[in-house]
């Protein structure tokens, strides 16, 4: 009986020893994935409800995430939820509520920017095409790919929709 236990123990030990998947400083597995992008973006208010109207617009080439919020939404105490591609992680980590008023963009709206309360592609593209208008204080987060070698910094912008 005793012998059997020892044999089993040794077997388990050898299996463990063979696994050579490396882990990073957070204890997360480093994989071979090279994808590195933000897939979605949301902000949660103190009432645990999302402040988003419509969908967030994420441009993975320009590395910009835009969120549209209702007119008058207070931005000083929000919890960001940033969805990433598989195995990726975010830097800095989100550990508390944040002041996103620093990410708020002032922009002149044009005809066709809004359709039934939601932003149109025209508006999304106009914002992305004009980086000089981005507030310098806007929140920035870096996405780190599964292989931990590729890093991409995203800028997060908030646009308040006109009064509805």
């Amino acid at each position, binding site marked *: 009986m005793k012998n059997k236990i020892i044999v089993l123990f040794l077997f388990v030990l050898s299996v463990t020893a063979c696994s050579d998947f490396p882990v990073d400083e957070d204890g997360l597995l480093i994989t071979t994935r090279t994808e590195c992008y933000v897939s979605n973006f949301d902000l949660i208010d103190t*009432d645990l*409800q999302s402040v988003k109207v419509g969908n967030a617009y994420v441009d993975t080439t320009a590395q910009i995430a835009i969120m549209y919020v*209702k*007119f*008058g939404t207070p931005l*000083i105490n929000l919890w960001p939820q940033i969805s990433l591609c598989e195995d990726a992680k975010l830097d800095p980590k989100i550990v508390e509520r944040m002041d996103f008023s620093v990410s708020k963009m002032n922009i002149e709206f044009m005809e066709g920017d809004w359709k039934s309360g939601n932003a149109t592609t025209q508006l999304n593209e106009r914002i992305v095409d004009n980086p000089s208008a981005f507030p310098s204080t806007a929140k920035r987060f870096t996405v780190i790919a599964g292989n931990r070698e590729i890093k991409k910094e995203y800028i997060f912008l908030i646009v308040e929709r006109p009064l509805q």
Partner: protein
Amino acid sequence: MKLKYHFFIFLSFAFALVACNDDPILLKDPVSSLSNDCVKRSLPLAPNIIGNEIEFAYAMAVPKNLGKLASAQVVASIAGATGTYFDPNSYYTNSSGQDVAVRVASDSQTNGTITSVNFTVDTCAATLRYYYIIPEEAREKEVQFTFSVKASNGQTAEYKLGPYKISKMDMIKDLLLTNENCYLSFSNPGEAVHVYSEADIKADPSLASKIDIMYAYSPKEDLSHAFYTPSSPKEYMDGVVLPSSFVNNTRMLKIYGLRDRQLSDLQYSNFIDDLDFKELNLNKAVYYILSLKEEAGAWIETADGKYRAFVYVNKASKGEMTISVKRYMM
């Protein structure tokens, strides 16, 4: 082998015991005197708030051959407020599940801390309900109750319940807010919130300095039911004008889904207690709240830091909103 033998002995012993046991056995001694029992019928977790009731059910019984029930009384350690009484009815539940009252006692008499009734029918068992209205004197204190009953043969029985902690906070329910009835003040003594109307402020402009929040309704979707203070950004107020002497910058935190059972009358067992107000952190509060809806609410701290409150939205329909409030003095 040895184990089998022991098991067999044990089994036959158990059989023997069961076999011998052919008379029903009373688990307790038979009732030979007046006895009583009492339960608190109010929600067990709910904070006990001034002006609200605590309900008890007091059961009494004496064996029929010993006599009948004569009188019952409760002594509260702090005299109850007006409205404290013994329900003179005993209740049974009919086939549709409804409580049906049967009158068994005289009208309840309350004298100081003592509330009593005399039985008016020949009965040897009854359960009476006792409603204690929490008085102002009991704020932050503990209340105990001594229930007692007398039988016609002179026997008495007694049952003690408590102590029950009485909360420091005040509560008020179902206040209607409209664009005319729109100024909330949390600083009136003994009143969780007072709603002043436009006419009240016109008649006595000095009242404006007591206002902590102004309610406004806008048909625009992004604003709808809103709370404003003098620090609210003007661009979010859609032309709403605050009274000139309204200066209190009340701090607020928007909440959704905190359905306090006492405020909402819904089935959820959530209760806001004194401790919640004490531990509330409003460091990152806002000075305005837009688009409040049903089941939403707000934590409030008055500008002088003297009062904290929770405002619950019971109903939010076009042009008006019904709120219930718990308020705690710091």
